């Protein structure tokens, strides 16, 4: 019989370790696969999972002792030791669920982390490092993340300037097919926003800059076409979204120039996004009708609002995670019903066989082969008939998550002294979630 195993987590993240420590232990591709095999080969480890992203490296092991996971880090970087956190049992389960649901991310509610955890699980499966326990755990984590995403609004709202730009433009124009984006100035934020806006499918990106060299370089970078600085006024009549980020200390786009441009564009709406500080777009432009003008402060305010809203949604998300952690723990506990069932059956069959042998020893001589077989069959039939009810009820209990019945059955039939029952009582709630009867469960091949 295997020893008692439970889930251990050792890891570091953006919350506990600086980037130079994280990058030393981060792993990808083949190195990650090798590390998984290495972990799996360690003594007492039955399953392993490594989540390695730019913000976190976390090692989950299903094992008898926690040291395997810790060794993973200390072997790679001694400096990592000071930044590690360790959790086990329900705590570790909760941690994985929170990570997958993006509650532990730098930007709460961001979408990438779930994909990264899925990928980590895929790798662990491919390397045969993840077995039945981690498979159940991860699937539950994915389901939890999905629930959080659909039942709360944690992923809503833009959390970066360029996302805000995309949201604003989408709100005004919908898709950008048949429209043009104009980049004024070669600022970095402008280029980022232009790239982000590509999702809306603009037909053309125009770039203009005081110095043609940088303008041309930027145009190449964003797949746009460069136009001379002197064309600015004409370009304002052409483009529907204008992103301004020059280093100029004054207004590059004035109220008068926009007013003239509106006439030229027959009052078609225009969106002016000013990413420069000091501002490059005269705030008075916003007073003109069909002109939508935003500056850095406006955008920052949107970012702050949606971050705040996400924090509020996170409270609801935590409740979902908690419920799922508890459900997972209960399910694990109920799985203890299956070993009890197997023991019960073994116990009964042992008795039946012994009794049949005893009977045959006494009267076997008077029976032919057929008669002997009948006696054995009768003993087996009695066992089957007697255990039919308890068997189906215990199976039902296991699938519905009821944990009281298996305990009662074990006690009633006097098989409680076997490992599954004993450990569970001792481990308390925490042990129940991660480990109960892990050995027997596995030995029965459930």
């Amino acid at each position, binding site marked *: 019989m295997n020893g008692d195993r439970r889930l251990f987590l050792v890891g570091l993240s953006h919350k506990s370790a600086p980037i130079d420590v994280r990058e030393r232990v981060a792993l990808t591709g083949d190195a990650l696969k090798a590390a998984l095999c290495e972990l799996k080969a360690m003594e007492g480890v039955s399953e392993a999972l490594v989540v390695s992203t730019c913000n976190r490296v976390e090692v989950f092991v299903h094992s008898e002792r926690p040291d395997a996971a810790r060794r993973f880090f200390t072997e790679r970087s001694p400096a990592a030791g000071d930044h590690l956190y360790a959790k086990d049992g329900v705590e570790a389960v909760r941690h994985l669920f929170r990570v997958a649901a993006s509650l532990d991310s730098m930007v709460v509610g961001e979408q990438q982390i779930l994909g990264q955890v899925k990928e980590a699980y895929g790798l662990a499966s491919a390397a045969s490092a993840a077995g039945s326990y981690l498979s159940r755990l991860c699937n539950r984590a994915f389901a939890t993340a999905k629930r959080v995403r*659909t*039942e709360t*609004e944690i992923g*809503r709202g833009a959390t970066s300037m360029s996302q805000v730009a995309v949201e*604003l433009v*989408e*709100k*005004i*124009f*919908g898709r950008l097919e048949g429209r043009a984006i104009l980049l004024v100035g070669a600022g970095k934020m402008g280029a980022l926003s232009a790239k982000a806006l590509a999702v809306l499918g603009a037909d053309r990106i125009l770039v203009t800059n005081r110095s043609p060299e940088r303008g041309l370089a930027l145009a190449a970078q964003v797949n746009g076409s460069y136009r001379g600085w002197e064309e600015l006024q004409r370009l304002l009549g052409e483009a529907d979204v204008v992103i301004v980020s020059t280093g100029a200390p004054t207004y590059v786009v004035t109220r008068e120039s926009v007013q003239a441009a509106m006439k030229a564009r*027959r*009052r*078609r*709406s225009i969106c002016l996004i000013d990413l420069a500080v000091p501002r490059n777009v005269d705030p008075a432009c*916003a007073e003109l*009708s*069909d002109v*939508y003008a*935003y500056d850095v402060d*406006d955008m920052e*305010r*949107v970012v702050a*609002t949606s971050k705040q809203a996400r924090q509020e949604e996170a409270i609801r998300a935590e409740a979902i995670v908690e419920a799922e952690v508890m459900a997972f723990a209960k399910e694990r506990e109920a799985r203890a019903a299956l070993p009890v069932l197997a023991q019960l059956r073994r116990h009964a069959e042992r008795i039946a066989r012994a009794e049949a042998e005893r009977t045959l020893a006494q009267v076997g001589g008077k029976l032919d082969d057929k008669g002997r077989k009948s006696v054995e069959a009768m003993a087996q039939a009695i066992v089957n008939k007697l255990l039919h009810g308890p068997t189906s009820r215990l199976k039902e209990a296991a699938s519905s998550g009821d944990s009281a019945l298996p305990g009662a059955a074990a006690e009633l039939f006097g098989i409680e002294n076997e490992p599954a029952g004993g450990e569970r009582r001792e481990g308390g709630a925490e042990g129940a979630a991660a480990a109960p009867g892990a050995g027997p469960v596995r030995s029965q091949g459930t």
Partner: protein
Amino acid sequence: MSVIILRVAAAMYAAAATSYIVYFARPRLARAATAGYWLLAAAFAIHAAAIGVGCAEFGGREFFSLRGGLVLMVWLLAGAYLVLQRRYHLPTVGAFITPLILMVLLPAMFGDPGHPGVPPETLRQKSVTIHILTAGLGVALFGLAFAVALMYLLQEREVKGKRFGALFSRLPSLDALDKLNQRLVRAGFVSYTVALVAGTITATAIWKSPWSWDPQQIISVGVWILYGAMVQLRHTGWHGRRYALLTLVGFVVVLGSMVTLRTVPGVTRHAGDYAGSAHTGGAQ
């Protein structure tokens, strides 16, 4: 009997409105929008039955009264929105339309069905039926445009004023609302034009003259010119806020004239008394 069926329809409209408003408040509940759609479809069908039974009961004369006109118009409005929803999938618009339907329907439900009776022989012709239906549809489409324009203006205020509240995340883009408004105005104008043509044919037939300075005629032509101008203005680049405001004004004129002409006694021969040949139409 038809009043009872109409009340059932109103209850369905109320349920649809509730569903759409729930969807508006909680956009994640996509099922609420689906429920709203089917409830509205059911309400539309029951409403149709109420109109049919009403025809049999009152002889069809009720359509010449304000009550009957409104009942018919909101039925067409519901139908127009159902078509719109199928084509453009704009469930948030439902949260604006269904309460409007309900509001118009409520007074009609408890009001007096007017003077029941079979319309005079002279009015029982195809051109009158076409006139009533297309006029009703035209006004319903103008009403739909009104709701869309209202959504545009509310959202425009948020987007321009940099206040990103509840509407911001729920309504379609300004551009989409603007284009939809334009399409509805155009479709309504076409329907209204047909109504005027059918009306002219009828007038020529029963009043011996296509034009008799009847206030209803004057206002109808005024409305037709107003919406015709809106269709034209679009080609000269009018759009957005100004266009939306114009749409609001247009519908207020339409609805205002409808109510006034039907409630002031004797002002128009369209009120149900078609017997006279001159300006002597009595109270309905």
